[in-house]
């Protein structure tokens, strides 16, 4: 079945430094990939999603590149902000079975310090 593997556990970094969260996946078909962000006591919210035309999605300074050859969709930001402290999930959707929901990774918690 489908699976998603993310950078595990907690990532701590200083404000202003770059951040990269790893995401690799296994899927029978060529899936759509997503990054969701969840702040404390809030709902998971869509941060980025992969495009069908290989464009690089960007939002709030974050970007991710889908590499089909390595089955990866790593999340990057050049300069972390305090407000980026949150839980990040990588997820995939099977193009042929979208209605069956997303498969999520275990999540990576990011803590940004001054």
């Amino acid at each position, binding site marked *: 079945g489908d699976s998603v593997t993310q950078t595990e556990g907690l990532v701590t970094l200083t404000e202003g430094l770059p951040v990269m969260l790893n995401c690799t996946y296994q899927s029978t078909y060529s899936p*759509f990939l*997503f990054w969701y962000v969840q702040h404390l006591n*809030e*709902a*998971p*919210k*869509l941060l980025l*999603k992969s495009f069908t035309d290989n464009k690089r999605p960007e939002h709030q300074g974050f970007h991710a590149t889908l590499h089909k050859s390595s089955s990866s969709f790593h999340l990057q930001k050049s300069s972390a902000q305090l407000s980026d402290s949150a839980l990040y*999930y990588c*997820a995939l*959707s099977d193009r042929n079975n*979208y*209605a*069956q*929901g*997303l*498969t*999520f*990774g*275990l*999540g990576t918690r990011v803590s940004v310090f001054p």
Partner: protein
Amino acid sequence: EAAVTQSPRNKVAVTGGKVTLSCNQTNNHNNMYWYRQDTGHGLRLIHYSYGAGSTEKGDIPDGYKASRPSQENFSLILELATPSQTSVYFCASGDRGNNQAPLFGEGTRLSVL
């Protein structure tokens, strides 16, 4: 504005009791989902629905039932709650026309004592 609303937001239940978690969406989405969130396990799919009258088992359906009486409403039912079902539950809705990115509700924190 697209919205998914869950109720209650917090619930304390007793072991063996019945618990119903409700979800309402105003997005006219066909698909709805129930996930639970636990540290170390991420978000796991319990049940999902293709539309009114449809319920399907997700990855961890044991101990849960679901009901989809209308396009807007999707309930998760714990007939005999157990402490292992203590968790945060999220409802989501989505559609192929929504660029395939489900929209989540704010969550229900359930404690089973």
